[in-house]
């Protein structure tokens, strides 16, 4: 099985315009992945499936991952020469930078013909609010049909070219995407019979009558 | 000699009265006291009455005994069916219900009582848009037709409710009415899908009516009469002392018996052909809009139909109330009839416990492409059998061989054609 670098170089040679980069996976499983730019994704996928050396005809797993905006605090140390001729002072400046988040879709590809291990490709959306469309790979691997609908349903990634993009697990009138990190569930969503700590706080807003008739006596603080 | 003479509606003097007096003197085989017990009991009850009333009372007695007997048989049959089904599936079957308010379990004998009460107390919902009269009439008609068929069944040596010259024809004429009742049930519930399902059930009933009728024609040909007692008479006697002359023990008889039983399965909507209540039947077939006691009536009618058809099979093929061996004649004839009937009913239940269900198109193809041709060919074999009845010695063996060939040959050929594209497969390993 070729290494990921060789695959990337062959892809770059065939599709000079595509943005391809290797994402290193530090864990001992060493399953590194190939980040594919959005534009030529479907051709690259078709190539991966039809190339005689690879024949990745089995798309085992399609996963959505939500990377919210990250606040990165950079501390830059600058030495300022002391105007009074004293020893230079070390000043740490903390610059807060918001790294824009994105939604990511990970495809685990295997080859049933050559029985070869996973080649993992990732596609990333522009950001988490408006640019959330990605080219759908269902025309290449039909196994993506339900899984991409699930990523659309739970993460909100719009796959263009998907034959039947609808919600699959939640009911059609459901608003919002539950698997996103910043998803706030409606507070009467699932009321615990014996609430304590923050669930109790949320549940209190829903008690019609005076203080916590339903909270069992034992939990009286 | 008859128990009651229904056929002569005219009040003309019927001749049963004189015959019943002369019965003790007929040196019929096995006329032990036990044998004539039912007739003695009947005479005891009706001897004091003047002439015209005695006939009414006798017919009333016969009706009561037959109806009461089959009602109890129905109740027992539901229990026995669930017990046998349970035992086949390695579980004890219903054994909790016994006498109400007591700890007595009675091996589940209280189950029919419990089911009856449940069915009686269930609410009987009639859809608003239903055709009230027909909706009510359907189960009644179905039950009436299946009870009518009991009139000609020879339960014992001279225990046939109505001695009709064309008894068998009467049996199947009454049986033909069930289709009408199924149609009424389907139509009256004004539900498009129960009508569709009723049409499907009708297709099944009609396509299995033909093999049913064709399979008893050879018996009539051999017995030479259409009356049920005549058929039983034709199966009297034993060959070489221990092989009874039952029709089932002849090649054509066995083939006709198998066709008859398979068609009987389909006529009473039993196991491989129980299409109406298959869940793939969109809803619940033509019984969708029925509940409560009407629903129970439908099932009572199905069980009565099953009992009537197996009783007729016993009469036609298994020698009616005849004992299998000469020295077994001491056992009264009605006991033999009951034993054979229970054996066939057990066969029905056994088949229901084992076989999956056929699809509607496979079911009708099986009837038209396999059963009807087999029945017609069987007619031919029976004709050959009757023509060669006077062959003797080695020719007898040839006669058996040819008859067997005439039965087995088409069976194998048509069997192979029918199951052309179904065969157990062998698998390769990677």
């Amino acid at each position: 099985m070729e290494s990921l670098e060789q695959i990337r170089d062959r892809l770059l040679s065939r599709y000079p315009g595509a943005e391809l980069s290797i994402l290193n996976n530090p864990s001992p499983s060493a399953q590194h992945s190939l980040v594919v730019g959005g534009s030529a994704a479907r051709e690259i996928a078709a190539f991966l499936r039809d190339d005689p050396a690879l024949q990745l005809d089995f798309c085992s797993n399609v996963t959505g991952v939500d990377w919210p905006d990250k606040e990165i605090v950079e501390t830059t140390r600058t030495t300022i020469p002391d105007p009074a001729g004293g020893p230079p002072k070390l000043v740490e400046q903390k610059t807060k930078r918001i790294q824009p988040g994105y939604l990511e879709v990970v495809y685990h590809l295997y080859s049933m013909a050559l029985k070869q291990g996973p080649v993992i490709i990732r596609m990333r959306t522009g950001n988490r609010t408006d640019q959330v469309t990605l080219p759908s790979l269902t025309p290449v691997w039909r196994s993506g049909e339900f899984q991409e609908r699930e990523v659309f349903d739970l993460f909100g990634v719009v796959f263009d070219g998907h034959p039947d993009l609808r919600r699959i697990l939640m009911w059609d009138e459901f608003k919002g995407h539950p698997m996103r990190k910043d998803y706030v569930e409606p507070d009467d969503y699932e009321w615990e019979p014996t609430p304590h700590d923050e669930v109790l706080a949320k549940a209190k807003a829903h008690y019609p009558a005076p203080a916590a008739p339903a909270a069992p006596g034992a939990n009286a603080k | 000699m008859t128990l009651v003479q229904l056929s002569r509606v005219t009040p003309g003097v019927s001749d049963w009265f004189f015959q019943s007096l002369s019965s003790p003197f007929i040196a019929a085989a096995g006329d032990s006291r036990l044998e004539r017990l039912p007739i003695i009991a009947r005479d005891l009850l009706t001897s004091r009455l003047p002439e015209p009333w005695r006939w009414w009372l006798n017919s009333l007695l016969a009706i009561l005994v037959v109806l009461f007997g089959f009602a109890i048989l129905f109740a027992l049959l539901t229990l026995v069916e669930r017990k046998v089904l349970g035992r086949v599936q390695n579980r004890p079957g219903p054994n909790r219900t016994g006498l109400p308010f007591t700890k007595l379990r009675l091996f589940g004998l209280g189950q029919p009582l419990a089911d009856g009460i449940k069915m009686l107390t269930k609410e009987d919902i009639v859809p608003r848009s239903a055709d009230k009269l027909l909706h009510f009439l359907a189960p009644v008609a179905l039950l009436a037709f299946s009870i009518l068929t009991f009139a000609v069944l020879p339960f014992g040596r001279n225990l046939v409710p109505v001695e009709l010259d064309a008894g068998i024809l009467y049996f199947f004429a009454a049986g033909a009415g069930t289709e009408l009742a199924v149609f009424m049930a389907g139509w009256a519930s004004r539900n498009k899908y129960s009508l569709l399902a009723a049409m499907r059930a009708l297709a099944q009933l009609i396509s299995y009516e033909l093999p049913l009728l064709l399979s008893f024609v050879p018996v009539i040909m051999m017995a030479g009469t259409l009356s049920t007692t005549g058929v039983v008479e034709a199966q009297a006697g034993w060959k070489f002392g221990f092989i009874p002359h039952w029709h089932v023990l002849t090649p054509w008889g066995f083939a006709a018996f198998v066709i008859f039983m398979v068609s009987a399965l389909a006529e009473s909507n039993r196991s491989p052909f129980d299409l109406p209540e298959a869940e793939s039947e969109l809803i619940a077939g033509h019984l969708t809009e029925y509940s409560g006691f009407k629903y129970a009536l439908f099932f009572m009618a199905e069980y009565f139909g099953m009992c009537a058809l197996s009783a007729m099979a016993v009469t036609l093929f298994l020698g009616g109330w005849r004992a299998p061996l000469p020295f077994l004649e001491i056992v009264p004839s009605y006991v033999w009839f009951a034993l054979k009937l229970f054996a066939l009913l057990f066969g029905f239940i056994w088949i229901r416990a084992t076989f999956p269900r056929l699809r509607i198109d496979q079911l009708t193809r099986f009837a038209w492409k396999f059963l009807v041709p087999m029945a017609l060919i069987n007619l031919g074999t029976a004709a050959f059998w009757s023509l060669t009845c006077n062959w003797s010695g080695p020719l007898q063996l040839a006669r058996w061989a040819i008859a067997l060939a005439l039965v087995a040959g088409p069976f194998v050929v048509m069997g192979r054609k029918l199951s052309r594209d179904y065969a157990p497969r062998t698998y390769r390993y990677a």
Partner: protein
Amino acid sequence: MLGIGLLKGLGVTAKNLVGSFHDPARLVTTEYPEQRTKLPENYRNFPFLVYDGTAAIDGLRCVACKICEVECPPQCIYIIPDRDEKGRPTKKPKVFDIDISVCMSCQICVEVCPFDAIKMDQQYEIAEADRFDRLLLKREALAKPNSYYQEIHPAEAAQVDAMLAEARRKADAKAKAAAEAAAAKAATAKPGAANPPTRPPAPSGSTPATAAMKPATAAMPEPAVPPVQPTQTPAENSATGNPVAPKTGTPGA
């Protein structure tokens, strides 16, 4: 030939029908509630708190360390540690609730509890009409004697008790050694100022468990082999030292 498969099928059902009358393997129903299947020793239903000695509440082994509350996946345990009059936390739970309508009896609390204070019960007939009050088991309802624990999990209980005894013996030995050392030091430094009194050895009742990380296997049941095997110290790893699932009366196996 058409029909052979059908006949074979009838043969199988007939064999089962006849078999159900004489072969116990062919009639497998145990008619609950009259007959009951014997529960294997490892069977677990809902947790309960073990207490030593006779006094139910203050004999509890639980020290309200809240490890189980944190580790419980459906978060159905709720503990409030007890405080004595001066506000210092005593090693006893004032409130210890388990909501068995939420608990899924996964026994992770038993696995992570360093003090063997919580074990899995085998009581399964606990249907209730009301979903709240009676399915929320309080401390009093949860506490059960160690003898009960011996009764339902004999092998496992034996191993746990042996370990506790071992830990207690080692704690006493350490305490005695510390006492002698202190006495010796006091003797040498007698002319000096009197030493502060040595800390009385911890009350025997609730010896803090050895801080060493208890391997998960130790809490598991021992083989039902009659002699209680010496508890396996983490280092020594004898071949058959593993806690094994005891003999199981698997009916009809």
